[in-house]
């Protein structure tokens, strides 16, 4: 392994600009003549728009335009769409309601945009937005996802507010297995609604060039090409070739910046209308009521076991709240990203899952770090832990008894796991966490009046999203391959254009490690280009831990072509047969001789083309590849959480965290560990602190960082992180992906630990001090403080 090759903890290329304040985020970009947009948003969860009076706002200084949903409709700007078709059990397609970028007739959630004010300065736009007078007729709202069927209907297309009633698996076979079970564990679970809260708020800056008819959009997006495709082909803003989307530095995404939102559409439309650039940047309060939220499941789950604790079957019924409109990929999250992972790391012969997706008068819900897989893992790992306790089997032992041990393994819920060693990660985690010493620590804690508990989560996820044919057959509207273009310059330096997008993941470093490793050239001589549809021809962006497994595989394929072409050039230079050229450590050698050409000489010769005629070999050294994966990848591992609960206050302290993950090949262990830390923090946030709360009228009670509890440094422990490795057989580098594992594994580990400490399974997330204290009082009333 070289100092900058695959496997090295190389310090990041991108850091210099960030630690010196030289990053370029969307809000940092400024265009000549730029105006600022402020949106007028609904204060009601559900209301008819009777009239909008913009005259007072228009008369204020600096105001350039005040535009409403009626004008948007008049200009034939199309609706936003959900790109994944799900069919109900009865074969009917999902009920996708119209989602205009500005509401014209009615609003469906607090924060729904009804008008936009464009002015010379932000302050002027904000002042004027206050003067837009909207006459609403408030309607009763539907908030509780478990009570949508009897509530007022939000959208004409969706009777009983039902989007789809979907199922996966063989219900009859599952019923049969349950009938023969020795033991059945049952749980009711609420997977709490979360707000992603990337620290950079969403922003959009649109510019129109009247001379060429081109529109340019700088946007906080994880996938600029998908954004361009949807805005061109569905919204109809401009033809695809006349729309450029640039995603510059993006300050965190966690899924919430995958989606195509109303604001970028409106900025583009307004910029063309007024002939000046239009910039919008969300303030945090606005983010809370417009960024797609995550999770929000209500679930009943059952696990059937035989007398030895062998799993026989699982039955799951989930209501998934998708909010007021169907966001870009919302339909896939509680279905194919959820039910397909219900087998966990276990050999479960039969699984049946039903999911009802419903509309409510709340912000749309879509993918948030893990997307469906944290919800599935929470169901599986809570069921397993509770079953172990009910049957008085050690939870680690029950897991071992049911682990899948041979591969490939076909689960009853679509997925075919291709590689893994679940015992290895469990064993290593038990060691690192010193589980043997736990009882001693528990007794010691008890002497201090603390309740100590231990919780496991042996999770699996499906990453490397995804084989295009497979997702296409399941309803996905796009292919999920990835592209790479490798440009070798005449001086031998290399630019790689990738269709993935980095917003914290460090691709500029890890992708350069791959190229440096493969071509034997200095790491410094490689640049990674991403996030601009005018530079990168097409790509699917970054989410679902796909950039390593899919994006880097595309680079490998392009590098294969580069090497093949470079060998041809070298053969001409060295006057040898192409088949005799060996490429190693940045040098082309004629096999069995000392004749060689350096990488830089070959690159130069490819361009000056003096040594070969253009008819036999094209000049230049640039290759493109589109890589379509053959399977998902299956990162898996074991997280162990150890807590101490204060009996008097219910306050939980995480005293030990151990994570052992199998991500396949690790390109940069420093970056991988960082991804694990961040994911765990978000999972602990879900388990202990975070919950988006709506009141019965649809007001978001937790609508600011003062009310929504984000994890702070003092809420979290340091983490012990270890790795095991089985290569992913489906891609050339053996990478499985690491971005979401922490968020997927951790909530179950935390709740398993607290319930172990307090001796009751009835514990909701987030397990705040109050929630834990109340659970303690229910479980041990005699010990009330």
């Amino acid at each position, binding site marked *: 392994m070289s100092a900058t090759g695959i496997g090295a903890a190389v310090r990041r290329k991108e850091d210099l600009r960030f630690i010196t304040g030289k990053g370029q985020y969307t809000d940092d970009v400024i265009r000549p003549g730029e105006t600022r947009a402020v949106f007028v948003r609904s204060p009601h969860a559900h209301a008819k728009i009777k009239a909008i009076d913009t005259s007072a706002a228009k008369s204020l200084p600096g105001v350039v335009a005040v535009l409403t949903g009626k004008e948007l409709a008049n200009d034939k700007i199309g609706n936003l769409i959900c790109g994944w078709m799900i069919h109900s059990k009865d074969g009917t397609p999902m009920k996708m309601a119209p989602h205009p970028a500005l509401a014209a007739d009615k609003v469906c959630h607090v924060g729904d945009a009804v008008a936009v004010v464009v002015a010379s300065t932000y302050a002027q736009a904000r002042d004027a937005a206050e003067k837009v007078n909207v006459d609403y007729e408030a309607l009763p709202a539907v908030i509780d996802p478990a009570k949508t069927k009897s509530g007022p209907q939000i959208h004409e297309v969706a009777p009983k507010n039902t989007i789809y009633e979907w199922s996966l698996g063989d219900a009859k076979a599952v019923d049969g297995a349950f009938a023969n079970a020795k033991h059945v564990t049952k749980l009711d679970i609420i997977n709490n609604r979360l707000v992603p809260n990337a620290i950079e708020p969403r922003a959009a800056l649109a510019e129109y060039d009247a001379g060429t008819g081109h529109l340019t959009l700088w946007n906080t997006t994880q996938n600029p090409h998908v954004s361009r495709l949807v805005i061109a082909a569905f919204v109809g803003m401009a033809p695809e070739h006349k729309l450029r989307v640039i995603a510059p530095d993006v300050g965190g995404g966690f899924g919430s910046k995958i989606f195509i939102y109303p604001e970028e559409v409106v900025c583009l439309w307004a910029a063309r209308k007024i002939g000046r650039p239009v910039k919008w940047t969300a303030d945090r309060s606005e983010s809370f009521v417009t960024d797609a939220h995550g999770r929000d499941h209500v679930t009943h789950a059952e696990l059937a076991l035989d007398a030895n604790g062998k799993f026989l079957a699982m039955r799951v019924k989930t209501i998934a709240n998708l909010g007021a409109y169907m966001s870009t990929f919302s339909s896939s999250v509680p279905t194919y990203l959820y039910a397909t992972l219900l087998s966990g790391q276990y050999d479960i012969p039969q699984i049946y899952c039903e999911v009802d997706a419903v509309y409510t008068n709340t912000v749309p819900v879509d993918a948030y770090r893990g997307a469906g897989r944290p919800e599935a893992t929470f169901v599986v790992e809570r069921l397993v832990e509770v079953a172990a306790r009910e049957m008085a089997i050690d939870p680690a032992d029950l897991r071992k008894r049911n682990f899948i041990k041979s591969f490939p393994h076909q689960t009853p819920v679509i997925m075919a796991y291709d590689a893994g060693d679940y015992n290895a990660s469990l064993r290593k985690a038990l060691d690192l966490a010193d589980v043997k010493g736990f009882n001693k620590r528990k007794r010691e804690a008890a002497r201090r009046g603390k309740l100590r508990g231990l919780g496991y989560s042996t999770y699996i996820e499906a990453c490397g999203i995804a084989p295009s044919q497979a997702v296409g057959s399941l309803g996905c509207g796009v292919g999920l391959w990835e592209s790479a273009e490798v440009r070798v310059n005449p001086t031998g330096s290399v630019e790689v254009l990738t269709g993935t997008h980095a917003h914290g993941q460090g691709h500029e470093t890890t992708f350069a490690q791959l190229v440096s490793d493969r071509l034997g050239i200095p790491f410094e001589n490689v640049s990674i280009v991403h996030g601009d549809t005018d530079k990168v021809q097409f790509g699917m962006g970054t989410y679902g831990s796909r950039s390593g497994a899919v994006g880097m595989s595309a680079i490998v394929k392009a590098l294969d072509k580069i090497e093949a072409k470079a060998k041809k050039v070298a053969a001409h230079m060295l006057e040898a047969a192409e088949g005799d050229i060996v490429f190693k450590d940045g040098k082309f050698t004629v096999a069995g001789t000392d004749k060689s050409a350096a990488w830089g000489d070959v690159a130069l010769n490819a361009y000056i083309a003096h040594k070969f005629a253009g008819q036999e070999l094209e000049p230049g050294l640039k290759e493109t590849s589109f890589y379509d994966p053959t399977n998902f990848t299956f990162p898996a591992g074991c997280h162990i959480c150890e807590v101490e609960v204060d009996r008097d206050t219910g306050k939980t302290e995480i005293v030990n965290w151990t994570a052992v993950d199998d991500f396949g090949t690790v390109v940069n262990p420093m970056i991988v560990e960082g991804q694990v830390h961040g994911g*765990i923090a978000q999972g602990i946030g879900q388990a202990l602190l975070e919950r988006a709360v709506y009141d019965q009228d649809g007001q978001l009670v937790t609508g600011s*960082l003062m009310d929504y509890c984000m994890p*702070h440094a003092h809420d979290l422990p340091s983490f012990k992180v270890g790795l095991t490795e089985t290569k992913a057989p489906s891609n050339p580098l053996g990478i499985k992906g690491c971005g979401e594992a922490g968020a997927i594994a951790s909530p179950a580990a935390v709740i398993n630990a607290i319930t172990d400490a307090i001796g009751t399974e009835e514990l909701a997330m987030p397990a705040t001090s109050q929630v834990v204290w109340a659970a303690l009082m229910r479980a041990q009333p005699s010990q009330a403080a």
Partner: protein
Amino acid sequence: MPGVSMTVNGKPVTGDVEARTLLVQFLRENLRLTGTHVGCDTSQCGACVVHIDGIAAKACTTLTLQCEGAKITTIEGLADPDGPLHPMQEAFREHHGLQCGFCTPGMIMAALDIVRRRGNDLDEHTIREQLDGNICRCTGYHNIVKAIAAGAKAMAKSGARQAAE
């Protein structure tokens, strides 16, 4: 509009601003110093932390006119453009204390203030408690805590200014 003058990163600057203009707006929009970020509107996230007369402050909750005559340091002013990085900047890079980079300028400016108040030998508990005014969504803080401890130590060694003036 009232006029204002102050020193920013060692250079005298003046401007005419509305009375309601926040320091962060003045820095970002008037002076084009976009390293200071805005991540919230309730003074929680700390992406906007700068130093006013050597003390950390949230530029999103400070009026520009309050800074008349003050010496302001932003992330851009921490290291000489031609010189080495400040040890705290270097520590964040060395310990992978950043991912998306958006909270980073505020984190580094806040970290320097922790050193000013608590010295160069910082334990994990102190750092975690003292970082209450800054939120990071990417790192889980693990590496930020390591970076601040190491940066504080490196500052003692190099004799770096605790808070740039």
